[in-house]
């Protein structure tokens, strides 16, 4: 989309605010609507927009394959790992109260960490799915649209 100047400029202006909104939804999940899943999808939407407007190869340079694939696993491991940490500290699996020994702060930290795990996995999976769809050679030419 090299010739779409307006699209490129508007996209450049939009992407930072989309990313910021995603982070807000991510870390504000305890207090307002939203959480890891929604934040992950919004975060992925910013990357997908970037990939649509600036091309897949440019987006690949921002989010290389090895990083994408390891982040998919990192989120899930972070979630499960919080559960194991709680277990080693003497509580049940996924009991966050033992993280700090206090129900209030422990739950806050636990929820923040697991939501972060959910967010990382969801966003990278969405980006990976889009990349795999987009990188296949299209059968339709431009004139078909």
């Amino acid at each position: 989309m090299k010739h779409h100047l307006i699209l490129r400029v508007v996209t450049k202006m939009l992407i930072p605010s989309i990313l910021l909104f995603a982070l807000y939804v991510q870390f504000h999940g305890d207090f307002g609507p939203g959480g890891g899943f929604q934040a992950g999808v919004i975060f992925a939407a910013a990357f997908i927009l970037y990939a649509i407007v600036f091309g897949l190869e440019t987006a690949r340079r921002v989010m290389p394959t090895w990083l994408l694939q390891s982040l998919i696993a990192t989120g899930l491991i972070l979630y499960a790992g919080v559960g194991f940490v709680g277990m080693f500290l003497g509580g049940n699996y996924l009991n966050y109260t033992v993280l700090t020994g206090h129900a209030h702060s422990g739950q806050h930290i636990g929820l923040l960490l697991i939501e972060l795990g959910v967010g990382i996995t969801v966003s990278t999976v969405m980006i990976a799915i889009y990349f795999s769809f987009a990188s296949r050679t299209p059968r339709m030419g431009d004139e078909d649209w």
Partner: protein
Amino acid sequence: MLLTFLGMTAFAIIHTHHLFAVVMMSGVFSLLSAGLLVMLDAVDVAFTEAAVGAGISTVLMLGTLTLTARREKVSKRANWVPLIVVCVTGAALIYGTLDMPLFGDPNAPSMTHVMPEYIEGTEHIFQIPNVVTAVLGSYRGYDTLGETAVVFTAGIGVILLLGAVGGRKRDARDENESGEGS
């Protein structure tokens, strides 16, 4: 009002053979249902619906369209069996809702079973304002872990099937394998 729009969008989807328009209409459908969920005070679900249904899945459908054809194959003869199946299933579902408690009924089983305990605990023990997050992450932490694993597995599955995250380009001769992942 929103329900009327939903119905109109559904009819438009059925009557269009132009798949690009169908994808856009399904995006509109998702956005309308998100609005409906907001009116039912389910803000978190509406958020998800707007982001996933109207955003990501529309993009993925468009990606699928570039891999397949752009027009639906029109079948000449009318197919009555699916219509009958849909009507019977719909009638059974509507019959089932007759036994359900009214919307917002304080004596409904879902309101009296574990809900008071969740609301009390979230407010006084955890001190987290958003009950949805507390239920998802804390009371139902195993479920959310399972859901994250499902998303993880889905991602791995799509990567393995389409196999293109590594940047390899394949020839597009292999047809009819683009329905996944939406």
